[in-house]
């Protein structure tokens, strides 16, 4: 995991994501609402990422490309991401000593991404791969 910037990601749920989910998870609308990461303005500048551009997020568990979104609030070092199959690819499957899974907060390496946002079909293919 060389390069990029280390960020603490926190997941949340937004109403428009839930609306798109009810309409169907295999739609562009659901991807547009889910495959995003809200970044601090200063962090975006530092990484050379513009709003709407792809961001590559990587952890020891997996990686995805999502679209960057500029946060209205300042929160350097922290990024917010809708809880979705995209954020799930970055979560560790190991339970902690207390038996709990961490689903809400994790550390990623973020960098300006190449190409386009990962599709849900690609995520399913990664899960299916041996």
């Amino acid at each position, binding site marked *: 995991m060389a390069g990029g910037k280390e960020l603490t990601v926190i997941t949340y749920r937004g*109403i428009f994501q839930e609306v798109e989910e009810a309409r169907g998870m295999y739609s562009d609308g659901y991807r547009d609402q889910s495959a995003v990461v809200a970044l601090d303005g200063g962090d975006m500048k530092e990484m050379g990422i513009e709003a709407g551009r792809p961001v590559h997020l990587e952890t020891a568990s997996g990686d995805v490309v999502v679209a960057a979104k500029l946060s209205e609030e300042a929160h350097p070092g922290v990024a917010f991401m809708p809880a979705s199959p995209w954020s799930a690819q970055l*979560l560790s499957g190991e339970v902690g000593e207390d038996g709990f899974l961490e689903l809400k907060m994790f550390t990623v390496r973020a960098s300006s991404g190449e190409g386009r946002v990962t599709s849900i079909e690609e995520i399913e293919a990664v899960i299916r791969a041996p």
Partner: protein
Amino acid sequence: MAFCTGCSLLCDDIVVDLDGGKIGKTMNLCRKGHAHYSSIGSGRLTPCVDGSEVGVEDAMMAAAEVLAGADNPLLFGWGASTLEAQRAGVDLAKKLGGAIDDPSSYSQGLITEKIIAGDLPTCTLDDVRNFADVSIYWGDDPSSSHPRHMSRFSYFPRGEKRQRGYEEDREAIVIDVRKSPTAQIAADGFFKITPGGDGAFIEALVASLAGKIPKVEDKKRMLNLGTKLRKAKFGAIFTGQGLAHSLRGDLSGFVSLVGKLNEITRFSVIPTLGDYNTRGFNQTLFDETGHVNSVSFKDGVRHGREFSIARLLDSCDAVMVMGSDPAAALPAAIAKKLERAAMVAVGSHRNMTTDFAKVSVPMAVAGIEAGGSCLRTDGVRVEFDGLVRSDHLSDVDIIKRIMEAV
């Protein structure tokens, strides 16, 4: 009046124009509820076995076969099921000698368990509307997840002892790591904490309630909050995923804070639960076993985190997922285990879990296509009829049919 099963508020004042048996114009459904109603027309699950479409009856028989052949089956999901289906599900788990669990095992299960067991004081949302003068939303953003929470119950409506409207009669406090839409409304009542900082916030609040100087940056604001809570006549704390995840398994600080508040005045806790009948499942299992989730019926009744989906997938040999999508919500490593498991998925719509299932069985959307009963997030029982005719079987009929066949 119709009901909405779009979230655990189960709004019961919905007006629907039924246009020749089809859903037309709706009144009072929030945007999420409206999307839920509209969803009956798209993305529906089809009955499949090993990737080929079959009849529903065949799919149910294949499901029974998968479960009957297993030594350690796990029955998971249940939040988006009626009380009747949940009851049948517990019976099925018993009959199979399997385990049963729901998403509360990685969400608010511990908080709900303490409420059901009486270790945390609670009240109904109607009490909140009638009496509450302080509403605390903790790691909870109902504006996004339960859009009518604040307007129906917790902040804006008039109630018996709350006749003057929110500006004069109520106070909204939001404790969160980000300025959520709910925090936006609370304006000056928003307390921003650092990620994972809930425990420290609890300590500071306990100190300020006791009149001690809290160890936080803005001491004055925390002391003011302490004073405000001391003066409350009827307080309510709404808990969300954010709080549950931050405190993980250790609720002792939170329970003692609520205890301290209740030595001074009255404060109740109501969790804001995700699926429309999460509370119903937790209650149903608790009534049967004394636990709200993660129970195995293999040798009597056993409970523990080792029977939660996160841990059990390593040892179980078949999984039935009921109205849920753990493959989308859980870490990829766990989704991989689900994908490899002998899995049956029962659900109304296609999702990642149904995509990975060996057998999929479509069901009706309760509240719209089928009737039933369930518990609102505060434990109040709600009963409804189906609104439109549907070819889909109800959740309880599916579970009963599978149970007959195993």
